[in-house]
């Protein structure tokens, strides 16, 4: 029956109920008599009409008072990260979500695990990436954002192809940053892919993405192998404990062949789970296990009804990690219907000046497809996928 998955995935979804609505309906249900209503008496039309009118007035009053209550209790979105007075690209969360994140996760896991998928030719991920950091010198510092535009990764049985929509752009983040940059003489701003001084980029104006999150690359290397071998990805464990053991055994094996990794196992598990959900054509059971594995990381904060920069609402995973030199906040927002990531990012809030910053990925589309990149459809294929 997996052929109907596309309906679930594509047809419009609805926003979650607000807490006021849930409370009102719950109270209405549990206060009801619990017996079938009698049919109104034939002569009682006028009475019934009167009752209905009164009921409508009551419902209107309750609804209006609910709105007032919601407004007064701060249900409107509040920024959760970023500089004072400025929402970070991460988005915002609802002050009082209707349900605890753990409860929502349970439902998402059940939905993901029972998902029927149709395996297609390639696993595709469309995303936008950005980095933020501080440039300049002690006289003038300004925060910049590197917007790398949209990218599409196509993962087939023999290789991976990445296509970008345009070259990255680096610009001051706010008007204040722009003013500081202009006071500094409007030096050339360079991004993470620029070639440094050889490309005319002064070190103090080259965003080198020094956020200490390189565990992502270390953990991701594992999937450089599994993504190009579908059969291996499809055989990953469907139980969170076994999935964790699989990852730990892999890294232990790696460490035995070279110097031991200097990352914490929790950090690697975070990135392994995130890479798996974004990039790996794993089975629904494995994807559900990855969500549970991530949720079990110590001090993981799960929050429902969080909105990303594109206004998409989902369940957020937020994990704060303190080291001797750094404070890092890892975030992932998932689609509650599919378990697919909507946003993934990490922010360094404590560290050296050049290390303060963030990277983020807005995942616009992820999943199986039969569409191939143009390079793979030509007769003489310059890309193997």
């Amino acid at each position: 029956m997996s052929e109907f998955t596309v309906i679930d995935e594509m047809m419009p979804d609805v926003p979650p109920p607000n807490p006021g609505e849930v409370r009102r309906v719950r109270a209405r249900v549990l206060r009801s008599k619990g017996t079938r209503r009698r049919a109104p008496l034939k002569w009682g039309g006028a009475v019934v009409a009167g009752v209905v009118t009164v009921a409508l007035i009551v419902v209107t009053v309750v609804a209006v008072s609910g709105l007032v209550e919601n407004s007064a209790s701060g249900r409107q979105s509040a920024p959760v990260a970023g500089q004072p007075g400025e929402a970070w690209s991460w988005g915002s969360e609802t002050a009082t979500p209707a349900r605890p994140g753990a409860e929502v996760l349970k439902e998402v896991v059940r939905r993901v695990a029972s998902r029927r998928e149709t395996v297609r030719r390639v696993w595709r991920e469309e995303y936008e990436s950005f980095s933020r950091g501080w440039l300049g010198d002690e006289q003038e510092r300004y925060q910049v954002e590197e917007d790398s535009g949209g990218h599409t990764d196509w993962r087939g049985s023999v290789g991976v192809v990445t296509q970008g929509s345009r070259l990255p752009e680096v610009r001051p983040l706010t008007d204040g940053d722009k003013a500081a940059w202009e006071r500094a003489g409007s030096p050339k701003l360079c991004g993470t892919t620029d070639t440094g001084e050889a490309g005319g980029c002064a070190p103090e104006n080259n965003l080198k993405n020094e956020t200490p999150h390189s565990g992502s690359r270390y953990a991701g290397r594992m999937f450089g192998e599994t993504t190009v071998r579908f059969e291996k990805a499809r055989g990953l464990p469907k139980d969170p404990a076994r999935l964790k053991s699989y990852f730990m055994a892999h890294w232990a094996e790696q460490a035995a062949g070279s110097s031991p990794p200097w990352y914490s196992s929790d950090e690697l598990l975070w990135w392994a789970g995130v890479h798996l959900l974004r990039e790996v054509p794993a089975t629904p059971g494995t994807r559900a296990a990855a969500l549970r594995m991530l949720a079990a990381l110590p001090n993981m904060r799960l929050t429902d009804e969080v909105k990303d920069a594109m206004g998409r609402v989902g369940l957020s995973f937020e994990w704060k990690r303190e080291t001797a030199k750094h404070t890092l906040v890892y975030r992932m927002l998932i689609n509650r219907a599919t378990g697919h990531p909507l946003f993934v990012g990490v922010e360094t809030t404590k560290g050296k000046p050049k290390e303060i910053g963030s990277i983020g990925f807005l995942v616009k589309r992820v999943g199986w497809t039969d569409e191939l990149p143009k390079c793979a459809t030509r007769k003489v294929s310059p890309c193997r996928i």
Partner: protein
Amino acid sequence: MIVVPDESALTDPERFGAVFDSHYAEIRRYIGRRLDLDIAEDLAAETFLIAYRRRHRFDPGRGEVRPWLYGIATKLIGRHRRAEVRRYRALARAAQPDVERGHDQRVVDRVAAGITVGRLAGALARLSRGERDVVLLIAYAGLSYLQVAEVLGVAGGTVASRLSRARAKLRDALGVEI
């Protein structure tokens, strides 16, 4: 703490409250994906009012509470069949890019290339009520054939034949198997 309702004791109002907490959002979402949200909220409430009234009749030996609730909701949706079809037709008429940018599912992967929300909505509008109930109980609720049969109060063979006809209609409308 996550409360897992004991389905064998629905007669207890507190236990029924746990059932409400576990399933209200899901049932509302199911109805809301088939009808306009303002109607959906009313019908979701009505679903639980009916379930509460009939909780003494629920027999855990015959199935789980979740499909039972979907059954009540599906019957209520049936009273708004024309509204549902009008909604699909409106979606089908709307400009595709705007529709797809405007709802929460716009970033969900499309499993089959070339299938748009508009075409899919148009195809769903052309299904009969019975066929659409079967397809959407499977697609949205993830119910099994047997559960769908139980929910709709029809034989398993009826579910299979409705599915077969629905598949053929969807394939004709979309040009691909979905």
